[in-house]
């Protein structure tokens, strides 16, 4: 069955395989490549429609500096961090707690609560646009950091709870029985047993949630208005001029915006440790 290694004695198949892999990779990376190249171009190139070719003049510093000079990119960046970091932390903390309780303490109604967490993920978020905007306006949170933080925490926690519940449920149940037999309270169990063992799951979740919140454009536009609150995704559109767009500058800004999620991945990578529960049970 798939995936099956291609035998050594089929050079043609192996060659075709390598070629196809390269092709798929190229296709996949082509847009990114174009954006990177464009971020090096001069505005003249953009005007001339040279989007794919080699830049006639490479002006890396000019373009990237322009991002910060022509717009409040730095402010937007800060806004994004102010929204994304606390939201991500809150989602991780909350989902570890809900996941622990839902996976280890069967109480009446647990299934219903779990179903609500999961079901919330299946609602198309767009249909909630008007009610949520109205809610935020009514509560006076519209156009504040809180609007986006609260919204993202509420909606990311649903998926994160599903993820954490399943991960915690897969931990050996004897560990929890042992802790309980040793007199550990549920809080102590959460802090001393669960938290250290779910580190890989939290790292994966941190990347997902961070990227998701960081990249969100829709809700940023719906729930914010002023430059003092706007995250970088919404701010990016300010760079587009009214008549002509300086695509080279926009590209440079886009690349800058993509940096934090990538950094996040490398930061979290060392927590992806397999076999954390090795030695817990049996041979």
């Amino acid at each position, binding site marked *: 069955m798939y995936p099956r290694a291609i035998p050594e004695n089929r050079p043609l198949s192996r060659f075709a395989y390598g070629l196809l892999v390269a092709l798929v990779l190229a296709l996949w990376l082509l847009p990114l490549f174009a954006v990177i190249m464009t971020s090096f171009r001069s505005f003249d190139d953009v005007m001339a429609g040279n989007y794919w070719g080699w830049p006639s003049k490479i002006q890396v510093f000019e373009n990237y500096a322009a991002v910060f000079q022509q717009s409040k990119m730095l402010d937007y960046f800060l806004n994004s961090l102010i929204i994304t970091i606390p939201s991500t932390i809150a989602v991780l903390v909350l989902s570890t707690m809900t996941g622990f309780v839902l996976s280890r303490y069967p109480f009446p109604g647990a299934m219903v609560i779990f179903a609500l967490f999961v079901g919330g993920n299946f609602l198309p978020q767009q249909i909630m646009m008007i009610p949520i905007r109205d809610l935020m306006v009514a509560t006076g949170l519209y156009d504040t950091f809180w609007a986006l933080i609260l919204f993202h925490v509420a909606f990311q926690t649903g998926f994160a709870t599903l993820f954490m519940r399943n991960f915690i449920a897969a931990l050996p149940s004897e560990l929890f029985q*042992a802790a309980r037999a040793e007199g550990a309270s549920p809080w102590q169990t959460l802090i001393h*047993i669960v938290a250290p063992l779910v580190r890989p799951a939290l790292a994966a979740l941190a990347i997902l949630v961070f990227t998701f919140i960081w990249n969100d454009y829709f809700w940023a536009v719906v729930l914010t208005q002023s430059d003092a609150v706007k995250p970088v995704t919404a701010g990016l559109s300010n760079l587009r001029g009214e008549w002509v767009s300086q695509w080279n500058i926009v590209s440079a800004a886009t690349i800058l915006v993509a940096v934090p999620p990538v950094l996040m991945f490398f930061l979290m990578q060392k927590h992806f440790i397999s076999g954390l529960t090795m030695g817990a049970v049996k041979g």
Partner: protein
Amino acid sequence: MNSVELIGLDKHYGQYHALKSLDLTIEKGEFIVMVGPSGCGKSTLLKTIAGLETVDTGKITIGGKDVTRAEPGDRGIAMVFQSYALYPHMTVAENMGFGLRMARRPKAEIDVAVRRAADILRITEQLDKLPKQLSGGQRQRVAIGRAITRSPDVFLFDEPLSNLDAALRTQMRVELSTLHAELGSTMIYVTHDQVEAMTMASRIVVLNKGAIEQVGSPLALYANPVNRFVAGFLGAPRMNFIEGTTTEVGTDDALVQLAGLAPLRIALRQGATVKTGDPVTVGIRPEAFAVGGSKPASCPARVRLVENLGRETVVYADASPLVTSGSDTGTRNVTIQLGSAVAVAPNSEITIGFDPADAYLFGSDGATLTPAKPEIQSR
């Protein structure tokens, strides 16, 4: 003082009746071994004593205190799991000190307790290692050490040695017995292993289908099982059971007719309820059989299989029309255990025999009808 008392424990898992009104009194310092077939409720009983499972009705006291509704941590128990259940992210020392740390004991006290336990179990060199860096036997010791540091009144062991190889098992068995002598705490120990049960227990509890069949010292249970179930459960190889009928019932003995043998005169206990013509089962331990015509009741048999274990020889012989029922091997052969290496050729014809005085008689309800036998045979 009673250490653990179980009064009328009853538990259901949904529709399934897991524990059926269990009563048991355990004295301080006893080493209780619970045995029984798989699924009979041994682990369930242990978990209810630990407080990890609740009971429907009944009462549990530990050290005279009613703990039926108490949290496991407040019961003065420590449990050792079959699968060790070590915390994988903590070192051996942290594992062993966990319970005390959760109880917010001073660090110095924890250190002393951990050192002491490590000394007893000879794992002092391993204290800084993680569980995954240990061998199976060492892990088992850490699991036991974790129980010791909390100095509980009652230790609960759920098949703690079943993951170890035979040599390590023997070693740990001896160590556990020594530990028990050293600590003097009450221990309740679940096992499948006959040898563990016979050697470690001060009393054995035989469980079957969620109910206690018999409680008593290992030798008492072996010599005087109250019914066919206990007789068949203790002893490896298993007792031979041969179906027959009574042809004559006197005041203190009965004549029993077995296929292929002359009627046997077997003693009856006082008050044994059996009538002439009742179906009965005769039980004969494999070691009560002898090869050759020296015994009072004998018959010819053909050797089917010989297991020569060096120190002993187990012979499976087809003695039909004399046939056994419910044997380990699933055949109707008679199992004979001989005390040393004996040259018995497969397929040869031999004469097997036993002394009716060594036989047990069980009624149709399984109850033992023969009078008590001495626990130690005088020779």
